[in-house]
C-alpha cells in the first residue's frame, strides 16, 4: 500500500499543491535541523575541545591543558574566521562592483549525489527577503538560482545542474549565447553561441546577459572562462566549453541578489585582467636596525 502511495505521488503529484505544502512542512522542520547539524559539524576546528579529565589529581595540569585546548580552539577558529572574512570581502566586492543588493547566506546542506540534482540549501528564507528565482552568487562568480524558498531556508539550483541554463555574453563583446551544465562534469559548462560568425577565443570570459525583469539572473555576473571551442567559425551550434569561476565543491558563503542593479554593470564585475603592478615586499630582519623593508613595484604584463 505504501508502494502505491509513493508511486502515485511520484506519477501524479509532480506539481500538486499538496506536495508543495508537504515540501514546505518538510523544510520548516528540517531547515532548523539541518542548520543545527551544520553548526555542530561544520568548523572542524571546534572539535578540538578540552578533553581533560576532572578527576585528575593534578589540577594545575588540567587547568593548563584546558588553556592549551581553548587556545588551540581559538587558533582553529581564527583560521576559520579569517577564511570567512575573506569570503565575505569577496562577496562585498562583487556586490559593490555590480551594484547588486545581496543577502549573505551560508550553505547548510547539499543534495546527495545519487539524486543527480545539483542543489543546495541556504540558511536564508522569506524572512530575509528571499524570493523564488533570484540570482545566487559568490565572491568568485555565478552560483545558481533560487528554486524554492521557505521561511528560514531556500533551495538553490546550481549552474552545473542539468536543468540550469543561463543567458550569457562574451565579455567585451555583444555576442550572446546560452550556458548550461550537463549534470555530469561539475567543472565544465557548455556555452552555445547564437551568432555562428562571432569570434570566440580560448581564455575569453563570459558574464550573465541578464534575464527579463532580472529573474532569475541579473546581468553582469561572471560565469567562467572559455577553455576550448568545438566547431568551426560559421557553423551553427558551435559549443564553447567553459571553466566556471565558482568551484561547486567548496561553496560555503554565498549571496542572494535581492535587488538587481539599476543599469547593466557590463563587464565591471569581472576581476580586472589588465596588468596590475605586483608589489613585492621583502623583509630582512637584522639585529641592529630591527628590520628593513624593501618594496619594489614590478608591473607584470600578464593578462588576457
Amino acid at each position: 500500500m505504501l508502494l502505491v502511495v509513493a508511486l502515485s505521488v511520484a506519477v501524479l503529484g509532480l506539481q500538486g499543491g499538496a506536495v508543495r505544502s508537504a515540501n514546505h512542512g518538510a523544510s520548516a522542520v528540517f531547515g532548523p535541523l539541518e542548520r543545527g547539524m551544520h553548526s555542530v559539524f561544520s568548523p572542524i576546528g571546534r572539535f578540538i575541545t578540552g578533553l581533560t579529565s576532572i578527576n585528575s589529581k593534578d589540577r594545575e595540569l588540567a587547568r593548563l591543558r584546558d588553556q592549551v585546548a581553548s587556545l588551540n580552539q581559538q587558533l582553529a577558529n581564527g583560521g576559520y574566521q579569517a577564511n570567512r572574512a575573506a569570503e565575505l570581502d569577496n562577496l562585498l566586492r562583487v556586490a559593490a562592483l555590480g551594484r547588486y543588493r545581496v543577502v549573505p547566506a551560508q550553505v547548510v546542506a547539499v543534495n546527495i549525489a545519487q539524486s543527480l540534482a545539483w542543489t543546495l540549501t541556504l540558511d536564508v528564507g522569506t524572512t530575509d527577503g528571499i524570493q523564488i528565482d533570484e540570482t545566487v552568487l559568490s565572491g568568485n562568480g555565478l552560483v545558481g538560482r533560487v528554486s524554492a524558498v521557505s521561511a528560514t531556508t531556500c533551495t538553490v539550483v546550481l549552474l552545473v545542474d542539468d536543468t540550469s541554463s543561463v543567458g550569457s555574453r562574451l565579455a567585451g563583446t555583444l555576442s550572446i549565447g546560452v550556458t548550461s551544465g550537463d549534470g555530469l562534469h561539475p567543472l565544465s559548462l557548455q556555452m552555445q553561441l547564437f551568432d555562428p560568425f562571432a569570434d570566440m577565443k580560448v581564455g575569453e570570459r563570459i558574464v550573465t546577459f541578464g534575464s527579463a525583469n532580472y529573474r532569475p539572473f541579473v546581468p553582469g555576473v561572471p560565469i567562467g572562462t572559455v577553455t576550448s571551442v568545438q566547431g568551426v567559425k560559421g557553423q551553427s551550434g558551435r559549443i564553447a566549453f567553459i571553466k566556471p569561476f565558482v568551484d561547486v565543491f567548496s561553496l560555503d558563503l554565498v549571496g542572494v541578489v535581492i535587488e538587481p542593479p539599476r543599469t547593466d554593470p557590463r563587464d565591471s564585475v569581472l576581476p580586472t585582467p589588465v596588468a596590475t603592478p605586483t608589489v613585492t615586499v621583502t623583509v630582512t630582519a637584522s639585529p641592529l636596525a630591527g628590520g628593513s623593508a624593501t618594496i619594489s613595484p614590478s608591473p607584470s604584463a600578464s593578462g588576457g
Partner: protein
Amino acid sequence: MRWRQLLLALALIVPAVAFEMAVLSRLGLPGATPDLVAVLVGALAATCGAGVGSIAGFVAGMLLDLVPPADGTVGVWAVGLTLVGYVIGSRYSLLTRSRTATVAEVALAGPVAALIRLLLGGLLGDSRVVWQSVPTLLTTDLFYCFVLATLVFPVVVVLARRLTPAGEARIS
C-alpha cells in the same frame, strides 16, 4: 503493530536524513554520497521485519524526496526504499543467517534503492538521470554502504533488542 520499533525507526531516520544532507554529502567524496539513510532502513528491516522495514523505507524515502535541497520528482526515493525495506525484512524472516551475510545484504540496500530511484526517475522523464554516471555512482555507493553497514547494523541490533519486549526481537 510494534510501536516501539516504529518509534525507534523514526528516531533514527529523522536525524540520519539531516546528517546525510548536511554533513555526508558535503564531504566531497568521489562518486556517491554515503547513504546512511538506506543503510538504516536495511538494518531496521533486517532486525524488525518487513512491516517495520517497509514503513521505515517509506518515511525515509519521502523525507529524502521532500527535505530542502531535494528537487524534482517526489516519491521516487520512497518507492526504492519501501521496496528495499520490504524485501530485506521479508527475506530475514524466512531464514536465520550469519551476521556477515546480513551486513552484506544491508549494504546492498543503498545501491539497490538508488538504482530503483534512478530507473523510476528515468521512466518519469527526469532529465537529470544520465546513465553514463550510474555505474560509478552505484559501485562507490556499494562501497560506502558496506562500510556504513558494518558500523550501523550492530548498533541497530543492540537498540532494537533493548527496546523490544523479550520474544519479539528476531535477532538471535
